[in-house]
């Protein structure tokens, strides 16, 4: 598929399906993030990139035999890895044993907040979330520095349309 517009749309649809899947797994917070970031803003940014560059992908010069082999082997290894994972909803699974009950039980007393996800995110794991915020801050600054910096150096009138 060389049409990049269709590729972006498929990416958005995939992300939205992912969000619905998260909702089926009773994770509305994650589904919310996936729908707004993945299906929403990412699609718009990808479309903005298309508007700046081109709608058609270039025809590759070489045959992608080796990359295809690597992807196939990696994919097979990942699928093989899932065979060892506990079944969905298994009460014996580590995920439903260690952190889950204690946080659910403790949030009620420790923190005056009904949404345990928010409590874990902002309080129990406050350091991690601070780190995430700094990551977003850094990413934003980096994008601004890259895009703005290159615009200044380019002579007026030549920027944008021919950029690839």
């Amino acid at each position: 598929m060389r049409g990049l517009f269709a590729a972006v749309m498929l990416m958005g649809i995939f992300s939205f399906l992912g969000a619905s899947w998260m909702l089926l797994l009773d994770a509305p917070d994650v589904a919310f993030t996936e729908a707004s970031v993945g299906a929403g803003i990412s699609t718009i940014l990808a479309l903005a990139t298309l508007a700046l560059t081109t709608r058609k992908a270039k025809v590759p010069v070489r045959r992608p035999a080796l990359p295809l082999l690597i992807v196939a082997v990696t994919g097979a290894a990942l699928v093989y890895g899932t065979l060892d994972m506990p079944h969905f909803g298994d009460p014996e699974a580590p995920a439903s044993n260690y952190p889950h009950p204690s946080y659910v039980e403790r949030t009620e007393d420790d923190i005056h907040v009904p949404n345990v996800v928010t409590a874990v995110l902002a309080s129990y794991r406050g350091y991690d979330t601070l780190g995430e915020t700094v990551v977003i801050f850094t990413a934003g600054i980096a994008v601004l520095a890259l895009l703005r910096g290159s615009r200044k150096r380019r002579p007026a009138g030549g920027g944008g349309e021919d950029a690839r």
Partner: protein
Amino acid sequence: MTDHTILRVVSKLLLPYVLLFALYVQFHGDYGPGGGFQAGVIFAAGFVLYGLIFGLTAVRRVAPARMVELVIATGVLVYAGTGVVAMLLGRNFLDYDALNPAHPSTGQHYGILVVELGVGMTVAAVMIAIYSTFAGRGRA
């Protein structure tokens, strides 16, 4: 896209509710699903919609680039500042119990609200900044 009357009218009708929903997600995140990350993105989506329909100059008038950059940094400072306040009150960094020592759980609630606000500010401002830089490049 400024000559599409239907798009202009519908988006103008929708915009306040998009922003209101973002604020709801932001400040109701401790009771229902949502929080700073989601709210920030939805808030920025409102600006993106405005920019798509009314043009980038209109967005720059509402949110000047300088102000957006300030908000990016302020959000991180609000988050880290909450931690520093907790330290100044004699507790560990980011230990919100310090905000209301008599009722630690209420202190936690305050802390989470403020911290989520910081996250929301940074996320929204970064998204608006990235979008307007992308959209601004084509016409430079």
